[in-house]
């Protein structure tokens, strides 16, 4: 091998026998096969193979022979000296030599570093146990195959591309696989939240367990791996752990040699390092602040490098990257920047029935990013538009429908043109089999709004994906008479559905997560807005008690912090005082808290509770702990929920009192506390018609009379003063409780988010409420039962959980900067 005749050619030594090193050599040979004498050092004892084919190899679709790029004959034919299995350990730049592990020294004229990258190992306890592997080379695949042949459980740490491919392969090899991913959605670098969520759903359907937000605490086992323990305490048993959390440029050799290093080896536009005789290419380099982990940029670098060495210099100017892949047969594509932002316009298309999500991001009439899930056919077209920075203004309206449509003339035409051109028997609504003719007939028959068309034809009333088509037909058929306005407002600007539609469809289609609602109901924004997210969170919570996992980040700050934010950014805290009754112990605890945490004011609220003002965010958990210790729980004064039940003293003290209004108030509050509602909710119980508890301006007012209890609803002392409507009179206290529960549940199930009872009652009418609560006894009983079922999950004091340490991070600063003093934060110099 070493006895090759020395030709009078400059010696090119390549460190790295991987994809970049060999491709660079190929490019050089293609330009001038007689320019250099070439020696390639490789750490692995193999010829050059296609690393991105490791996944099919693991999955059993390919053998090693299939993934070899250059076999031994190629090295021989091109007079390349391959030194495989003997990595270079040192560079002597002064003497222009490299030294291999075996001690072999080679002199170079030009040195090319193609050292690639190393898999990142999370340094958790147990990371060095037997049975923990990475997914980077043939040896890793060998280890995984050996483990898989024994079957059992595998855990893959890392829900990026590599991790998912490893999981897929192991699944096909018969292992039960759990993927642990730190971030909330899979492949967050390539996919946006919506697409990442769809991918998770699909992989789970195919039998993988996917845990997102999963932070590994340790890998446990005696001698060899037995499982993984997460920071939240969960344990996942496994005999094989694959770490696929990322890679980092392998710069050790270059750093030891004193080359300029950032995140990778610094190179200029011709891939030359800070030493003119040393070049670098591939994943180990940093070019203009960028490092790349994909194969396309690597090919571009190799071309520029070869041009710079042997032909006309043709500088490398960085790469725009795209990812197109099939994970478990699921097509996914992403390119460019899809993080959105200022001046960016998102165009989102969701086709729920075909499981498709597409999103393109346009800025200044140029495409800057694209994410495709389920149908990636147009990926290359988008990528092309993106790379060439073509002006897309003329095809803007048709862009999301893909190349065929956008370049097929439908583009610049009126967007309604396609609908107008449809035949009368053409299908508009696939769910209900409604033709264009039927919809047009309905419109001509007087259905002049989307809701009216939905009501009389069912078109767009199921999955809603044809809403745009129906609106187009309304516009075409009615001309200028169609205002485009719907009678009921849409839930927010992200959707064409009304609140009522959304609530109905959540139940009908059994939607149980926010991203699922957004996908199935064709949301036009990637992750909603500050209006729809809290609404969806509430609707799901109401629809699926005990099942839906509350989304903290879709809650307004007061509910996230379980306290009221005030104008100076501090919080106020209201402990519950059942029925407005307190005692010395509670008062003492409140006084102590006010002193200890330097509250700036303690005030009696309009609902007969004490509000402690001026508490710092950091102090909230200890304030709650102290109040809990005195037996008090959260008053939910911050929440869209039952806040207070105001009472008078009633028959126990008052000379006019007819019933025990205080006792009833306490019982109602004990039944109702913790229940989330569309808006804040207040109840009052007065012991006689003098109405000292002001029950007639509350959401529910109970007025005790000699013969029983008068119930009234829909009052509001807010911006628009509204007295209650009389609902009915009941005879017993239990009836009063049951009617209250039924009414609250009706309001919870049917009102729009952020509607108080007053506007809701005015909209639906008191007759409707009476019919549901008073006349329909069976219906009332069902509502009451659903309320109590829901309450069985809701009556947990949120303060207690936080005081015990849940979500403690929310209350802490991330770090602190102290100028000109010892920095708490570790400092890091980045060149």
């Amino acid at each position, binding site marked *: 091998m070493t006895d090759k005749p020395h030709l009078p050619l400059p010696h090119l030594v390549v460190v790295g026998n991987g994809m970049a090193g060999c491709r660079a050599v190929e490019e050089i040979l293609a330009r001038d096969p007689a320019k250099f004498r070439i020696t390639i050092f490789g750490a692995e004892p193999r010829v050059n193979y296609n690393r991105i084919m490791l996944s099919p190899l693991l999955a059993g679709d390919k053998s090693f022979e299939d993934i070899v790029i250059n076999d031994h004959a190629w090295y021989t034919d091109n007079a390349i000296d391959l030194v495989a299995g003997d990595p270079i350990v040192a560079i002597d730049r002064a003497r222009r030599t490299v030294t291999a592990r075996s001690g072999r020294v080679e002199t170079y004229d030009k040195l090319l570093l193609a050292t690639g990258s190393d898999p990142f190992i999370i340094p958790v306890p147990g990371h060095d146990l037997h049975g923990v592997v990475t997914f980077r080379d043939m040896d890793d695949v060998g280890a995984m195959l050996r483990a898989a042949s024994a079957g059992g459980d595998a855990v893959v740490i890392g829900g990026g591309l590599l991790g998912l491919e490893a999981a897929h392969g192991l699944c096909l090899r018969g292992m039960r696989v759990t993927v642990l991913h730190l971030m909330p959605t899979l492949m967050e670098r390539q996919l946006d939240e919506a697409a990442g969520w769809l991918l998770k759903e699909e992989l789970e359907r195919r039998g993988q367990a996917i845990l997102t937000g999963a932070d590994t605490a340790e890998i446990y086992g005696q001698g060899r791996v037995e499982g993984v323990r997460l920071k939240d305490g969960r344990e996942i048993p496994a005999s094989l752990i694959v770490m696929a959390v990322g890679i980092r440029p392998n710069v050790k050799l270059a750093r030891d040699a004193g080359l300029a290093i950032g995140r990778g080896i610094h190179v200029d536009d011709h891939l030359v390092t800070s030493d003119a005789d040393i070049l670098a290419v591939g994943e180990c380099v940093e070019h203009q602040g960028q490092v790349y982990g994909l194969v396309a940029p690597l090919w571009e670098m190799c071309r520029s490098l070869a041009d710079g060495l042997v032909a006309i210099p043709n500088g490398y100017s960085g790469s725009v990257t795209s990812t197109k892949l099939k994970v478990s047969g699921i097509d996914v594509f992403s390119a460019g920047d899809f993080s959105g932002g*200022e001046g960016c316009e998102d165009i989102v298309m969701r086709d729920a029935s075909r499981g498709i999500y597409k999103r393109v991001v346009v800025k200044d009439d140029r495409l800057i990013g694209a994410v495709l899930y389920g149908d990636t056919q147009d990926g290359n077209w988008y990528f092309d538009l993106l790379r060439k920075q073509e002006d897309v203004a003329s095809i803007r309206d048709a862009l999301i429908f893909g190349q065929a449509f956008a370049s097929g003339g439908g583009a610049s035409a009126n967007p309604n043109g396609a609908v107008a051109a449809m035949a009368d028997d053409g299908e508009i609504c696939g769910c209900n089999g409604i033709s264009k003719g039927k919809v047009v007939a309905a419109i001509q028959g007087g259905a002049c709004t989307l809701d009216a068309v939905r009501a009389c034809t069912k078109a767009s009333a199921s999955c809603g994906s044809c809403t745009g088509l129906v609106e187009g037909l309304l516009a075409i058929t009615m001309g200028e008479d169609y205002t485009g306005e719907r009678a009921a407002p849409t839930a927010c600007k992200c959707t064409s559905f009304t609140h009522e539609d959304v609530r109905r469809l959540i139940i009908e289609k059994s939607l149980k997560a926010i991203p699922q609602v957004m996908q199935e109901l064709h949301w036009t924004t990637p992750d909603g807005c500050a209006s729809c997210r809290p609404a969806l969170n509430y609707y799901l919570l109401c629809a699926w008690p005990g099942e839906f996992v509350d989304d903290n980040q879709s809650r307004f700050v007061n509910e996230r912090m379980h306290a009221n*934010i005030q104008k100076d950014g501090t919080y106020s805290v209201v402990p519950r005082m059942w029925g407005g009754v307190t005692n010395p112990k509670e008062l003492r605890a409140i006084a102590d808290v006010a002193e200890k945490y330097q509250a700036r004011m303690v005030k009696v609220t309009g609902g007969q509770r004490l509000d402690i003002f001026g508490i710092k965010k950091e102090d909230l958990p200890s304030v709650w702990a102290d109040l809990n210790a005195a037996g008090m729980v959260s008053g939910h004064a911050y929440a869209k929920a039952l806040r207070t039940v105001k009472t008078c003293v009633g028959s126990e003290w008052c000379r006019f009192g007819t019933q025990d209004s205080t006792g009833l108030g306490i019982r109602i509050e004990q039944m109702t506390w913790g229940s989330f509602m569309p808006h804040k909710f207040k109840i009052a119980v007065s012991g006689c018609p003098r109405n000292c508890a002001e029950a007639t301006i509350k959401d529910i007012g109970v007025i005790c009379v000699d013969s029983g209890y008068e119930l009234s609803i829909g009052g509001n002392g807010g911006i628009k003063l509204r007295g209650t409507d009389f609902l009915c009179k009941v005879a017993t206290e239990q009836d009063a409780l049951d009617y209250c529960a039924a009414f609250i549940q009706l309001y919870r199930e049917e009102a729009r988010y952020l509607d108080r009872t007053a506007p809701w009652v005015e909209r639906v009418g008191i007759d409707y409420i009476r019919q549901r609560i008073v006349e329909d006894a069976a219906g009332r009983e069902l509502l009451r039962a659903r309320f109590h079922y829901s309450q069985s999950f809701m009556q947990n004091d949120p303060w207690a959980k936080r005081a015990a340490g849940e979500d403690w*991070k929310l209350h802490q600063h991330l770090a602190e900067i102290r100028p000109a003093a010892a920095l708490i934060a570790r400092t890091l110099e980045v060149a």
Partner: protein
Amino acid sequence: MEPEWLDIGPVDQLPALGARTLPVQGGREIAIFHTANGGIYALANQCPHKAGPLSQGIVHDTTVTCPLHNWRISLVTGEALGEDKGCVPVIPVKVDGGRILISRAAALAGVA
């Protein structure tokens, strides 16, 4: 020499679609945001309207809605969106190896 970038901790300590705070002694507090796509942004923790703590708002796309009066502020430019007018200082941040680095000069701007 003073470092140009300060390491303020790992990305995974920020809730996705959430924010945490970074007090600066003698200066104004900074809010660090984490978007759904994993993007990290930093703004002065004060809405230009009535100085609301932006870190406590709802994050959606690359926007935060102020918890006090629902002004929408761009995490990218710091500008108020829609009809509202105003701007919050943006502090350059970057992520390296899973850690958040913040521009020292921008973070300390305004420190007496």
